[in-house]
């Protein structure tokens, strides 16, 4: 049986494909599964916890401005210090207010955007943060630069991309496989094989996106840990001492209100929808504002001087280098949080498909290995007997 070199090469590719995730299949499975959950973690929390919802008291109620929300918070809790306000992507989410209480605790509060009422406090078990930490760095703490868990997870981008490429190489004429029905009734090996291939061809784009962005996370960590920066984002200098007015009676210098800061930032960043506002963290700090514009994959930001009303620093789409357009788009492409619920659901669905691909790949491998092992055992049983008959043939006269 002379095999053509082409055929043996594809067999090698097949072997590579089947071995890519195997010794660590359960790890890969959990990473895919937690990634799938992380995409919709915000929505899961929304479903589970009414505090997170932006319920409109009646149809005529209008959304409050940031300053109105801040006033409502200060009135409700005069001792509380508000550090930032953010509107999550989606008007059905309550505003998140990061605050510091007089006892030194720093909870995040959910605030109704129509009434300014404090609806609740973020629970101690933060489901969103937990799934992201598990998926993103395997819970390994960051002590010196990037956590080694981050490397562990992001390294998986490499075998994932390799399994996409080898999978396409071994699947002959894969472009004809989009509408191939999954055969049932021929045993589970055939069923899982068909499903694996069908899911695979429909997920080509998704696996490519997830693996390439995953490899970017690896590169990002390598760059970060070697203190190499490709960012052109300006470092915002502190406000000069002369610009902070001194009061004779020892009371804090007056600052502009948040709505004025939003207006000034809007002039500096045309078309921006401010969704995050950080109040000055020191007497010499700016009001930092950020939001998305026409390009949903990137944030634009401005630092407004609360004493002089000048935008001291800004980082707009036009300030980015071509390289940054690519690298900064990597994270939202990985997480799917750039186009509201619809895109998240697409990412969630293909995340589920990807999880099933790991599982079906494993099932196929197990069945194949079981068969191969049985075959190998049979052969090794036959072999000694064959050899024995050879010997007897030799010694026979």
């Amino acid at each position, binding site marked *: 049986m002379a095999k053509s070199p082409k055929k043996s090469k594809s067999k090698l590719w097949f072997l590579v494909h089947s071995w890519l995730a195997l010794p660590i299949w359960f790890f890969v499975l959990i990473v895919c599964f937690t990634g799938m959950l992380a995409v919709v973690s915000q929505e899961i929390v929304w479903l589970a916890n009414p505090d997170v919802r932006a319920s409109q008291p009646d149809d005529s109620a209008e959304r409050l401005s940031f300053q109105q929300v801040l006033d409502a918070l200060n009135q409700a809790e005069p001792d509380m210090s508000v550090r930032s306000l953010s509107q999550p992507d989606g008007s059905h989410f309550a505003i998140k207010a990061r605050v510091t209480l007089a006892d030194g605790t720093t909870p995040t509060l959910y605030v109704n955007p129509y009434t300014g009422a404090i609806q609740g406090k973020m629970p101690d078990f933060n489901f969103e943060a937990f799934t992201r930490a598990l998926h993103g760095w395997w819970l390994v703490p960051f002590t*010196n630069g990037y956590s080694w868990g981050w490397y562990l997870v992001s390294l998986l981008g490499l075998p994932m991309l390799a399994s996409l490429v080898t999978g396409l190489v071994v699947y002959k004429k894969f472009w004809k496989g989009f509408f191939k029905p999954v055969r049932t009734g021929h045993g589970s090996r055939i069923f899982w094989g068909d499903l694996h291939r069908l899911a695979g061809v429909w997920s080509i784009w998704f696996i490519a996106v997830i693996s390439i962005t995953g490899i970017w996370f690896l590169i990002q960590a390598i760059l970060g840990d070697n203190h190499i920066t490709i960012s052109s984002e300006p470092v915002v200098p502190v406000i000069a001492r002369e610009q902070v007015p001194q009061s004779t009676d020892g009371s804090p210098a007056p600052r502009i209100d948040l709505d004025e800061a939003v207006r000034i930032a809007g002039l500096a960043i045309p078309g921006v929808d401010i969704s995050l506002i950080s109040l000055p963290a020191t007497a010499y700090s700016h009001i930092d504002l950020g939001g998305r514009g026409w390009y949903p994959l990137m944030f634009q930001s401005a630092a407004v001087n609360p004493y002089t009303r000048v935008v001291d620093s800004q980082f707009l789409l036009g300030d980015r280098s071509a390289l940054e357009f690519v690298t900064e788009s990597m994270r939202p492409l990985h997480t799917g949080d750039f186009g509201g619920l619809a895109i998240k659901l697409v990412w969630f669905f293909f995340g589920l498909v990807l999880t099933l691909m790991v599982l079906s790949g494993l099932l196929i491998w197990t069945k194949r290995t079981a068969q191969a092992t049985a075959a190998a055992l049979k052969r090794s049983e036959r072999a000694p007997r064959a050899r024995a008959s050879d010997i007897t043939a030799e010694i026979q006269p």
Partner: protein
Amino acid sequence: MNQARALPATPLKQFWLKWRFHLNILLILIPLGFMPKYFADARMFRGDAGLGVNQISDIQVGPYSLDLAELRDEAPRADGPAGHFKAFNAALCKACTNEVKAVYLRIGKPRSLRAAGTIFFGAPYRMGTNLPVPPRTRPDAQVWVTIEGWDGSMHQASVPLAKASPATVAWLEKQGGKP
């Protein structure tokens, strides 16, 4: 695989073949092992675990008073070419939050308000800063707190570094004056 079986099996190879799927178990043990640390850290960052460790309460700085604590009981952390940093938290007295413009921290006495050190960020009830710790710092050094009032006044006080962060002093002694 069949090919692999045909090859003469070295002990290393046999070990790998026998134990390779146990890698999964090892990998799953990692997040399980770090879970208590994860929740302890989350609690610490929420401020539920208090201001920090090795807290020094009621440091009198002119007319004001302040609590100082290191975030973690550990040696300063390296941040590349920028050097080593030690995270500290502070809380101002409740009555003085409105009069204080800024609080600074520095190893060694500042010569002027402009060189008062690193500024504390955040609400007066819980502020944080990263204090640069030069490796040549003497273990008996003092940490200086400078408070600047909105009226332009300046007040100073100091505490021994050995009291504010014993782990930093242990680290400095181990460095032995090496740069």
